[in-house]
């Protein structure tokens, strides 16, 4: 079928379904991102061609004074229902007309991939949430100062020296933490460790937790170290911003120094990559529609994202 340009708001709204991959800027609440997206969608829809005005029913009582100059009668002769006019009832599309749900929320200081289910995509977003998909973070820690909540915007509590910290020591610590987290993973899978079932699970490799109560970390890796800053790549499920910040703090204590988390960035959520995510200047209707289409292709390529049968990790 040939591609045609769409000018009609109804058609666009009909196709406004699916998963949306948005790049959430740091320092902006996930709720505000959602509101901005929804209001931009509505703005776009309201600027497009709207449906025709409703016609008046035939037997409407005439309420005008009956003179020729009376515009009430003119309008009725025109047979247009003025109560359906955009000026009198308001815009056709309001943010509350669009259903929207986040797959998993990010904290205020976290930037990166944020997935929304829009309209009929809400079902898909629920599946994604239930399936406990792995998220990959790039976490930058700043050594030398510790802050109250381990994030850069609060009071500095401790300062210390960090000259003795080398890449080898961070990598070694990361590896040992990864090992201990993987032990915890088997404890959280909901199977008694002293059974044949647990043994079979362990043979399969990494497994995902049974519920979303406890954070599980599958891999920590140092990817960059310069000056006071070091960047870790971290794969995990059920993690929160506070948990990750505390993790950086604990790591620094192990390294005989202190640190706070200067940047948290979610670079991947299952197969939804930061490369496809929609930046703030792309949050308009055409960009959103394009992004929905891209994410639909990703979902089609990886049907296991929605229908998860195996307990072991593969995404």
């Amino acid at each position, binding site marked *: 079928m040939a591609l045609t340009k769409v000018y009609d708001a109804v058609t666009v709204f009909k196709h406004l379904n699916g998963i949306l991959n948005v790049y959430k800027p740091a*320092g902006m609440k996930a709720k505000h991102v959602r509101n901005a997206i929804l209001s931009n969608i509505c703005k776009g829809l309201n600027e497009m061609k709207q449906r025709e005005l409703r016609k008046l029913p035939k037997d409407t009582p005439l309420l005008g004074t009956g003179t020729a100059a009376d515009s009430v009668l003119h309008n009725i002769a025109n047979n247009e229902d003025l109560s359906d006019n955009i000026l009198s009832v308001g815009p056709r599309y309001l943010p509350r007309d669009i259903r929207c749900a986040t797959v998993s929320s990010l904290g205020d200081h976290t930037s990166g991939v944020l997935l929304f289910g829009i309209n009929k995509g809400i079902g898909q977003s629920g599946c994604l949430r239930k399936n406990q998909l792995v998220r990959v973070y790039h976490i930058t820690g700043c050594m030398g100062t510790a802050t109250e909540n381990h994030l850069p915007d609060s009071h500095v509590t401790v300062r210390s020296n960090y000259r003795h910290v080398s890449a080898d020591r961070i990598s070694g610590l990361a590896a040992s933490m990864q090992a201990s987290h993987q032990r915890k993973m088997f404890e959280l899978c909901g199977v008694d460790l002293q059974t044949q079932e647990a043994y079979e699970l362990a043979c399969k490799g990494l497994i995902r937790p049974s519920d979303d109560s406890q954070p599980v970390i599958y891999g920590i890796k140092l990817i960059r170290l310069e000056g006071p800053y070091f960047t870790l790549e971290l794969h995990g499920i059920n993690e929160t911003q506070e948990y990750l910040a505390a993790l950086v703090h604990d790591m620094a204590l192990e390294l005989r120094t202190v640190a706070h988390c200067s940047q948290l960035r979610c670079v991947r959520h299952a197969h939804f990559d930061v490369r496809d995510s929609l930046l703030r200047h792309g949050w308009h209707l055409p960009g959103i529609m394009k992004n929905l289409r891209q994410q639909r292709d990703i979902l089609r390529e990886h049907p296991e994202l929605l229908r998860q049968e195996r307990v072991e990790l593969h995404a």
Partner: protein
Amino acid sequence: MFCSAIRKILVNSQNAAKFSVISTQLRYLRGQRSALSEIDVLHPTDISTKQDDKELAAETAARKSYEEVALDFGSREAHVPSFNLAAYANSSNTLQQFVKLGVNLHSIERRKGLGEFVLRLDFEKNVKPYISFLADQGVSADDFGRMFTKNPLLFKEDLDDLQTRVEYLKSKRFSEEARQRIFTQNPYWLMFSTRRVDRRLGYFQKEFRLSGHDLRLLATREPNVITYNMEHLRKSVFTLKEEMGFNAKELSALIVRKPRLMMIPPDDLIERFSYIHQDMGLSHAQIVQCPELLASREFRLRERHEFLKLLGRAQYDPQKDLYISPKTIVEGNNFYFVRNVAKSDLKTFDLFLKTR
């Protein structure tokens, strides 16, 4: 003895009949009041206690007319209660004229009491004189819709008062174009009494030691500042003066160039200022030179400044090479900025934004 007892009972029953007539009439009147329709008051039925059959006839007549009122919906169609103005748009001439002018009825009805007020207006009597008055002041017809949407209460003001307020502006030597701009940009201006506007203008003149010309420029550039919440204005002026430390001369220059700064929440303003002054390293004098910096949102400044820094082009000192004017940073959309100021391409900028 027995006869007198019977007579008593008879009198009692007659009294009862009289009361029943009165009560039906009362019920009728009450029904009429709740209906709020323009039906003339029913002539009082004569209450006779002389003959029973006459009484009965009057009673049935009253009941009949009462039933008629209860079933008569014909002329009350337009007065059925509704949650919005749209329900009346088909039957009210005023609302139809408003729609033609481009007034957003849905945003009027959201404010308390305004829907009812607008509905009570008569277009010929209450609206037309104001439109011709505004047209005489040079307000163009395209702006009427926006103005009345914002401030429908203008129709409550007396036309003579409005004329006085215009004369006041004339006496303060506001030019024709200035007045036209003021009325168009700020539909609330005409609601303010001459004394109040005078006090406000006096405040600005005294606070920033403005000349008459500068004050007129300020009021024309951003008419909304003059009628803005005074509490908020005082707070912003405090922020600008004490927290940011602009001196009196710089402050007046800043205010005249960008009066909108006073309407921005002070917390946002101080955040922007601290970024510009501390992270970008611009002096007060440079900020006064381009007040657009303070008017732009902080994330925008941050993104663009950090991108320039990454490219090694964040050089805001006009004495040195490769100078980038701070004004150009906040101009235009991202595409314009990336191509003309950063001399890079949008893909790089996108990649950069995704690392933050």
